[in-house]
């Protein structure tokens, strides 16, 4: 398979173990996975590599997920890239809740709620892959 045909998924996640699980799974499913440790990296990679979808953790050092997403959305390309927020922070939290609407993530998933298979399916669905 040519790497150019593979969809690029950016996984922005600071927890190593979780990174590993997501990366393995998505790679198995046939995606090209790029990793970012924090929001700064994530933003940089996004703007440089223009991934097809971004899996975004919120609670990260240096620049948290929300801020990164905000910055991302200011970009012409960035404002429409699909972003699935994968976090353990509850959406019902006031601070998060405000921003979710305006930052327009595709999904807001709690890691503890969603199985990895489910996540992978959602990614496929979003990108129009069966």
């Amino acid at each position, binding site marked *: 398979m040519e790497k150019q045909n593979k969809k690029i998924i950016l996984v922005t996640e600071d*927890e190593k*173990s*979780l990174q590993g*699980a*997501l990366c*393995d*799974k998505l790679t*198995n499913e046939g995606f090209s996975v790029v990793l970012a440790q924090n929001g700064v990296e994530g933003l940089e990679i996004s703007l440089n590599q223009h991934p097809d979808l971004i899996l975004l953790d919120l*609670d990260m050092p240096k620049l948290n997920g929300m801020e990164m997403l905000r910055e991302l959305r200011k970009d012409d390309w960035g404002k429409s890239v699909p972003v699935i927020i994968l976090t*353990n*922070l*509850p959406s*019902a*939290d*006031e601070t998060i*809740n405000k921003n979710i609407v305006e930052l327009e993530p595709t999904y807001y998933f*709690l*890691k*503890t*709620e969603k*199985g*990895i*298979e489910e996540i992978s399916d959602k990614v496929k669905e979003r990108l129009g892959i069966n």
Partner: protein
Amino acid sequence: MKIKNKINISFITAFGVILISVGLITGLYATRLIKNNIYLYLESDSHIRAEHIRTFIGEQKKTATILAAASIYQDFLKEPLGSEQYKIIKDKINNRLARTMQADQEIYEVLILNINGITMASSNLESEGEDESKDEYFLEGKNGVFIKDVYWVDKGEGDGKELTYAISAPIKDDSGNLLGVSLLRYKPDYFYKIVKSENILGKTEENFLINKNKFFITPSLFLGKEVVLKQKVETKNANDCFDPKEIEYVSQNGYFNVDKVKGLQIVEAQDYRNISVIATHAYIPETGWCLITKVDKSDIFSFRNNFIIIFLTIFIFAGLIFSIIGRLISRKITKPIETLEKGIEKIKESYFDYKVEIITKDEIGKLSKAFNTMTGVVKQSRAEIEMKVKEQTEEIEEKARELEDQKKAILNVLEDVEKEKSKTELLAKDLEKFKLAVDNASDQVIITDPEGIVIYGNRAVEVITGFKPEEALGKKAGSLWKTPMLKDYYEKLWDTIKNKKEVFISEILNKRKNGQSYIANISISPVLDTNNEVLYFVAIEHDITKEKEIDKAKTEFVSLASHQLRTPLSSINWYTEMLLAGDAGDINEEQTKYLNEVAIGNKRMISLVDSLLNVSRLDLGTFIVELENVDVIEMAKSVISEMRSQITMKNIKIEESYGDGVKNFNADKKLLRMVMQNLLSNAVKYTSQEGKVELNIKYVKGGETFGEKIMIGDYLTFIVSDSGIGIPINQQNKMFSKLFRADNARESETEGTGLGLYIIKSIIDQSGGNVWFKSEEKKGTTFYVIFPIDGMKNKDDIKK
């Protein structure tokens, strides 16, 4: 004093003054005039008479001389006695003498004396032959005409004595040789006539003659003939007459300008009677007599006095007339004034229609016209005033009544006040306590007037803001520490407290004196009086910085917990999933079994962590309530379908029933879902095989009974009942407590956090609803949940 009298008195006074002045002047003048006239008269009278006498005597002297010069006299005396011729001549002489006697009635006797003084012939034959040689008229007559002063002579025939005077003249021959003396004796009657006054000046006017010895030679008017040659006149006047200088003058010049000699001859002195007279004198040089002319002063001045009396009478009469005229004039003048006066009296009696009738065109007439006008004005204004007074009196009476009422009210109030006084004193002590309490409270308490001006601040102001409460007094609240406020927020604040007169509660960001910012919970409450008007605002500020920090810490903890707890759980979750999915290679049955255990354990853990986080968030209030239209039936079915596997496994019968019109409900999806999930999952969990679970959702109206309670409003209600293990009665009161699990629950099902009911009760309570249950051990449990019909409420709504 009345004008009339004034005029009268003026008149009389004027008159009197004139009278007196004129009277005095006239009196004085008259007196002088009279005096002068009298003097003049007396003097001239005296002089005229004197001249008359002198002339008379002169005539008589002449007669004597002529007689003496008669030739027959010479012949007679030359003729010797006894001769023939003598007799003839004697007869002739006798005839001559008789004729002479007849010719002049005054002659008393005519005599011819010879050179020896023997009476040769006489008209009185008895006198012939008498020797007169010793008599001075012979002795002096020899030399020249001689007048012998008046003297007494026997009348003869024993008739008493007579007054007489004699004039002798020498008889001389042609050669001038003395032959004899002619002698004429006169009666002084003619003098009597001369001196007889005409009483022009008065009855006391008198003239008389005195001889050189100052004896009367004519009778006195008052004392009669007796005084003749018997009484002397020793008066000043008489003395003056015989003044040598005057005698000399008069002898030479007569009476003309005789007063040049010694001044006025007229004297005012005492006469021989010692009565005051005005007298004058005239010296008769021929005889050496003095003619005294006098008049009693009283007589003169009686004349004057009469004159004055007449004058006075006229004057008084004139005066009376004057005063009558004066009276008339004054009356004429004052009458209008009296009329005016009467008018004023009438007005005093408030008879305003009285019109003064004065027709004169003078000032008084004008005055009366003005007076009438004034009366009219007074009348009108009086009427107005009376009306006003009436109005005012009514007002005053009204006010008085009000005052009476007020007085009563005040008295009542005072009674109450007295009662209250002791209460107040106690209250004051309490207030002191309160004041101390407020002063020392840890929260900031500020009291402002209705405009927001600070009138009180407690000590906490300084503690919290760093500003002393005194610094804030009189300033607008918040201005001192420059509370940053948005316009909308500011307007909302004032609208709430001033217009709506409600409590305003908010969190604000403030700045301390040192510039440090802090967060505070403020509540501003309006204090209203009995008329619902704002008396004060009470602002209480609670520095919640610490709390906020704690909150922040809690929130951070939550997120921390979320992240830190969940991350490894997620990791376990996914890896076990991938293992079970065979992504790492095939696994055997036992491996699968163990991995499943791991997965289950992980899921429990995740569930517990979720519950814990929910509890925390509910406690913190960090849950956002997003109200939207929720299809409750659809949600219920969805929740039930989630539990399908469990329901099927336990073969539990689920009965759903939904009331009329139950569909859309204003709620927070996730929270409502949590409620439903918890209740239904509990019902399923604690119901054994073949059990039954019923779900009912319906509307209940106010007044109806639901769950053995009477609804006081309209509600959306849920009933979840099961035929499960029930709840022991002695543990029912702890069911909604955190982490509580009833004993039988723990025995039957080890899985359970004990947080579920706490969470849903929290949610339901915060939504404005209520939850309770009815349960019997081993029989079953029924949970009742009600939500207000217009939806779940925000926590903000609830706080209101």
